[in-house]
């Protein structure tokens, strides 16, 4: 069954998360939720990815690595902040080592709330991100002056 015209690949970055959201992302990949039926593959390499999933808040140690991963993803790219910690710093917001949500470091396109975010919620967020990804792709193509091709290579 195909649900989408494209197969978006995701890369997952674990900020300072408690593992709750991470294992829910993994759970979304496994049989019961199985996002691979959308053609979504969790890749370890940011250069292969379209969507960056971030879990956990940003702290002083992982700020640079996060920026680094973000910079390596080719345009167009979408960032999805998963869970309360990634959206706003959450319950750990006031800790001395925490800067806050993902948006303090890199631009975020979709916020998925929940503590921990449910797999369904994560699927919703990724589906929403796909719409944004498509818009961004169109913008880039228009800028480059290329004629729009439906379903063309990203």
């Amino acid at each position, binding site marked *: 069954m195909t649900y989408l015209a494209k197969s978006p690949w995701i890369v997952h970055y674990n900020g300072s998360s408690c593992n709750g959201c991470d294992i829910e992302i993994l759970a979304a990949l496994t049989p019961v939720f199985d996002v691979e039926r959308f053609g979504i593959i969790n890749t370890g390499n940011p250069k292969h990815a379209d969507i960056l999933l971030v879990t956990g808040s940003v702290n002083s140690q992982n700020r640079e690595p996060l920026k680094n991963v973000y910079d390596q993803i080719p345009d167009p790219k979408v960032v*999805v902040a998963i869970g309360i910690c990634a959206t706003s710093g959450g*319950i750990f*917001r006031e800790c001395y080592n925490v800067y806050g949500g993902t948006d303090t470091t890199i631009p975020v396109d979709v916020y998925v709330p929940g503590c921990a975010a449910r797999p369904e919620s994560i699927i*919703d967020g990724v*589906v929403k991100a796909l719409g944004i990804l498509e818009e961004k792709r169109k913008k880039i193509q228009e800028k480059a002056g290329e004629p729009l091709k439906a379903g063309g290579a990203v």
Partner: protein
Amino acid sequence: MVFFEMTKTALKSVLSKPATILYPFEPAKKTDLSRGHVVFDGSKCISCGICMKKCPAQAILVTKEAKTWQIDRFRCIVCNSCVDTCPAKCLSMDTQYTAPVSVKGVEVFTITYVKPVKPPADKAGAAGE
């Protein structure tokens, strides 16, 4: 024996229902107790502010003067603490989780509760905490 085992597994997989839930085309798994999001009933709130004090994530802000109750869904950890401690039972937990969004914001609700003239004693006590 190995072959027999394998056939058994294969048959089981063919005959059983797929494990996958075809979300979003099928409804999400949910139970009666699932913690989704906090629902506020403005007609019962006595503006005591206990939910604000007991919120470990400081997601709730109650302003007595402006008569508003606001919640930041992007701070709320859905722990049920406010629902448990609310003396007026104006908060409840809904099983539907908050949908993902592109722009963060807070939700503001108006408190419409009017203090009844009679009996005033016990309500005032609860609000004073």
